[in-house]
């Protein structure tokens, strides 16, 4: 087994990960009254307090700021959840790995698809908010398929690598959780890149920033900077190569580490 064969077999089983990922979301909210809306209620409470507060602190008019902030916080949830899920992908599928032996790409794609379904769900809030804030602009959706592809590819190879190591060293999951927590403040989510003035380029060193841009920019009416496309293409390629060369050392040993 190598990475290419793993990906090919996983692609043939597309119906499996689409189905399992979808059921993950469905099951989580099955017997709750508000269903998947619970995903957004927390963020909306957060935004309703932080929106007015930060627009005052940053001295920006609310109407310019609120649409940006709601969209950013909700899309950030998707990026954050993907990276929080990544270290435990294999641990959560331990029974499958030892006794069913599916191609690993199935577990990664299931995790990514699950989070994209939740992302799709959050558009119920994002779309009306950005529409009424006059941020929506159809042209900015032209590259949206490319944006999604870049997020998926980066997520996929990050997941192979980090999930593999995260199975061997169980410290990776808590480390990732604290990185994500800090990243919420270090990434332009509640603040804007432009507020850094001449130091705006510092955000380019933050990989989460580029992924966030891919998912939120179309709804905020702009196309991400070229540098975001370049960085994510390069990281996807590096991720692929690293996964490819380490496949025998990491992926084929995962079953022993469970």
């Amino acid at each position: 087994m190598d990475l290419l064969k793993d990906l090919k077999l996983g692609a043939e089983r597309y119906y499996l990960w689409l189905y399992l990922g979808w059921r993950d979301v469905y099951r989580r909210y099955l017997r709750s009254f508000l269903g998947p809306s619970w995903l957004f209620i927390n963020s909306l409470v957060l935004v309703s307090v932080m929106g007015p507060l930060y627009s005052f602190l940053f001295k920006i008019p609310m109407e310019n700021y609120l649409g940006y902030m709601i969209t950013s916080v909700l899309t950030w949830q998707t990026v954050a959840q993907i990276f929080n899920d990544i270290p435990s992908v294999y641990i959560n599928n331990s029974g499958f790995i030892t006794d069913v032996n599916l191609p690993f790409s199935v577990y990664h794609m299931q995790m990514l698809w699950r989070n994209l379904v939740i992302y799709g769900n959050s558009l119920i809030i994002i779309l009306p908010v950005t529409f009424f804030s006059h941020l929506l602009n159809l042209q900015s959706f032209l590259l949206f398929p490319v944006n999604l592809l870049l997020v998926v590819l980066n997520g996929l190879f990050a997941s192979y690598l980090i999930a593999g190591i995260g199975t061997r060293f169980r410290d990776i999951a808590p480390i990732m959780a604290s990185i994500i927590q800090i990243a919420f403040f270090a990434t332009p989510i509640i603040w804007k890149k432009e507020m850094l003035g001449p130091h705006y380029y510092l955000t380019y060193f933050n990989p989460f920033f580029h992924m966030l841009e891919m998912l939120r920019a179309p709804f905020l009416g702009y196309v991400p900077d070229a540098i975001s496309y370049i960085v994510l293409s390069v990281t996807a390629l590096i991720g692929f190569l690293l996964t490819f060369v380490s496949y025998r050392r990491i992926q084929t040993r995962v079953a022993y580490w469970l």
Partner: protein
Amino acid sequence: MLMTSLISKYLVGGRIHQDKKHHAPAVTALENISFSLREGDRLAVRGHNGAGKTTLLRTILGSYLPTSGKRTVHGQIISMVGMNLGFDNEASGYENIFIRGAIMGFQRRQMQGYVDDIREFSELGDYLNFPVRTYSSGMMMRLAFSIATTVPAEIILLDEWLSVGDAAFSEKADERLQSFVAKAKILVLATHNPKLAEKVCNKSIEMESGRIISQS
């Protein structure tokens, strides 16, 4: 040294030794394993607890890759150990037929053809409309077993002969498992029961602490 003597006396687990690279005790679960099976072969794997029977099955399945040596498999393998995995407690019995089907590699429309047979054999009837969290563990086993033995399999790995359900059902299930296994091209059965091994299998290996000690 103490450990080795304990093992040879009581026979549990694989061979324990000192791993030179990591300076820690390590277990060699399987060593010097070599055999080949072809169509029509029914292999019984026997041995004490921890002899390596399940590890051998998982190595054949491909979830454990040998650290040295080679494994070659032609054909689609199904491990009956995994037949309980992936059930969604909140989904109905019917829905779970399709979930299990997808896990075994069958799309929804392919699985559709097996639903009647599964309903009939499992005797679950209208209960298939209920979420499986409402099932008793016996009913759950019936469903899992019925799904697993309905779809065809080329190579079957069985960790102990399955016994499912109450007295009446377990007799029926036994017949079904026999005909399911008979349709397969290759069977590997790990078991402690020598009578069963003799009845079902035409080949047998006996394992001790990760090695094959006799083969027939």
